[in-house]
């Protein structure tokens, strides 16, 4: 496993490309759903201490909406689609014409819709990744939570917890310019999955 920690620039580029392909497809799917262009930032691949991971989405106590999918198959891992509250409400409005009052909380209908969006986006991320690598990757049924970012993201770090105090993750932000829809994709492959991904792409792992 020292390989992940001593990961070279070339391998980081490979992982960044994985984020690019996966999130690119997901952004396209989202853009079709919303019937609006969705922009995507250059994926960030980083090895971060657990403590800093939640900072990406505004800190450990920031309230976010997260759809979580476990990736099963040849290279298991965890995937999160995270959006902030105002973005989620606006997206609901756009997609379902649900009336957004300034009410607290979410109805079952809204949560179910968010879950389905996560499902579509996660599915398109993974299927493009599976095509690219030739690996079999299947998402589990998604699950949605509205809670503190730290509490949610820590769930995806357990596999790394056994190895050390930091995790290697692929993060991609996307935004829909004018309405300020902002979201994040996190792919956190299990520590053992990295070598499988590299091998599938013909990147030598010693």
């Amino acid at each position: 496993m020292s390989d992940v920690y001593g990961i070279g620039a070339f391998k980081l580029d490979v992982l960044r490309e994985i984020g690019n392909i996966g999130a690119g497809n997901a952004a396209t799917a989202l853009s079709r759903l919303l019937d609006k262009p969705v922009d995507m930032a250059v994926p960030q691949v980083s090895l971060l201490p657990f403590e800093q991971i939640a900072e990406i989405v505004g800190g450990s106590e920031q309230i976010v909406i997260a759809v979580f999918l476990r990736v099963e198959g040849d290279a298991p891992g965890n995937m999160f689609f995270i959006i902030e509250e105002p973005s989620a409400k606006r997206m609901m409005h756009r997609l379902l014409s649900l009336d957004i009052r300034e009410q607290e909380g979410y109805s079952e209908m809204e949560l179910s819709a968010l879950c389905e969006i996560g499902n579509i986006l996660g599915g398109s991320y993974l299927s493009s990744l599976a095509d690219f690598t030739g690996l079999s990757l299947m998402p589990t049924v998604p699950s949605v939570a509205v809670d503190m970012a730290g509490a949610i993201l820590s769930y995806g770090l357990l596999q790394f917890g056994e190895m050390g105090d930091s995790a290697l993750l692929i993060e991609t932000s996307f935004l829909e310019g004018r309405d300020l829809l902002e979201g994040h994709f996190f792919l956190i492959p299990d520590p053992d999955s990295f070598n499988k991904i590299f091998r599938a792409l013909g990147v030598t792992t010693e």
Partner: protein
Amino acid sequence: MTQQVTVKVGMADLNIATDGALIRTTGLGSCVGVTLYDSAARVAGMAHVMLPSSEIARESAFNAAKYADSAVPALIALMEEAGASVKRMVAKMAGGAQMFAFATQSDTMRIGPRNVESCKQALSLLSIPLRSEDTGANYGRTIELDSRTGILTIRSVQYGLKEI
């Protein structure tokens, strides 16, 4: 008015607070916040435990604060250095939620309840009474222990503030 100092405890981390300071950890999901308090010495300790047992550690030099079975003794050692006595310590804990519900219940998905169970075991091994707990369910918590009073304040998105 003087501001109370707050000691921050990160994920897989532990620390102590003395001299009337507060000690706090944020965003507990399936992780458990174990707190110990010696009311005579006014020493408060907190650990943000991530995994149940150090037996599963695949790293050679592991971080004691991360695992329930190793965090409790490590926290006690640190508190005793600050003048606390294990005989006077009482425990409170919070966290161990199951953030996401799944049809298939693999062991990893049940990590919250397992963390709670493991913390209780570690406490009872050292005969430390568990005074109160707010564990389980499916929501995240932020906790704060006051070293002057031993009161543990729990904050969550859905239920606001709660003291135990």
